[in-house]
């Protein structure tokens, strides 16, 4: 599944394009707990989260995130988006909840990251 398909499925808005939306997303993790995310990202993953602080972007320095989807219409502030720009990290925002967004992607065939 590509980021572009994910954006369409979630009726999302792109906040930062990064290297483009044609990149393939192999798997995903959904969580609002940073340690959970760190523990679950053993391979390049899409992150779905309700967290919008700078530490979510900092996470991408530690583990391989192919993009972040912010749920429930939560928008990171400009300086956080700027941090993502510096890292070439795609950001998408959706009005859907974490549960619904995850369910839609799962049903469309996007598997969970290996723990």
């Amino acid at each position: 599944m590509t980021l572009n398909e994910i954006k369409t499925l979630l009726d999302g808005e792109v906040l930062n394009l990064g290297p483009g939306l044609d990149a393939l997303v192999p798997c995903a993790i959904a969580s609002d707990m940073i340690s959970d995310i760190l523990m679950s990202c053993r391979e390049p993953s899409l992150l779905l989260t309700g967290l919008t602080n700078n530490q979510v972007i900092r996470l991408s320095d530690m583990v391989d995130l192919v993009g972040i989807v912010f749920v429930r219409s939560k928008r990171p502030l400009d300086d956080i988006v700027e941090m993502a720009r510096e890292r070439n990290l795609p950001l998408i925002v959706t009005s859907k909840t974490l549960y619904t967004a995850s369910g839609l992607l799962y049903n469309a065939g996007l598997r969970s990251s290996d723990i």
Partner: protein
Amino acid sequence: MGEYWNIKPELEDSVKQHFSAPPEAEVELEFEVPEKDFNTAGRGSSEVKDLLKRLGVDSETLRRIAVASYEAEINLAAHSKGGVMSCMIYDDLIHLRFLDKGPGIEDITQAMIPGYSTADELVREFGFGAGLGLPNIQKNSDALHIQSAKGSSTLLELLIFFSAP
């Protein structure tokens, strides 16, 4: 005074040798980690990962080092009155050392239990406080040493080998 050790059995000899007679590090770095400053927390771990990447450390080892280092750096910011993160890089391993200014861990064994957390509201707002920090550090390290007592500073140090010796 409480003390905790966890060493991968197959690496016990190498770890003991390192701690009993540490050689001179190839590179040494130091980062201040202020209390509750989540704007800067994590920068040290990012810089260390960047440097090791340039030095050619493989991606899986890099991930383990970054995760263990970041969790420990966040612990300093979230749970202590601030402290210092020191990084010593050798030919075959990295030694990370986190020394804070208190208030100390009352029961280290309890702190190691997944899900146990003393994080306050601010820390939780940032997405920390899952009670997985120390277990995650242990999972990704080849050797972990913690020394602490209630009312005093905590020393957490870990070793990760670049490839099995």
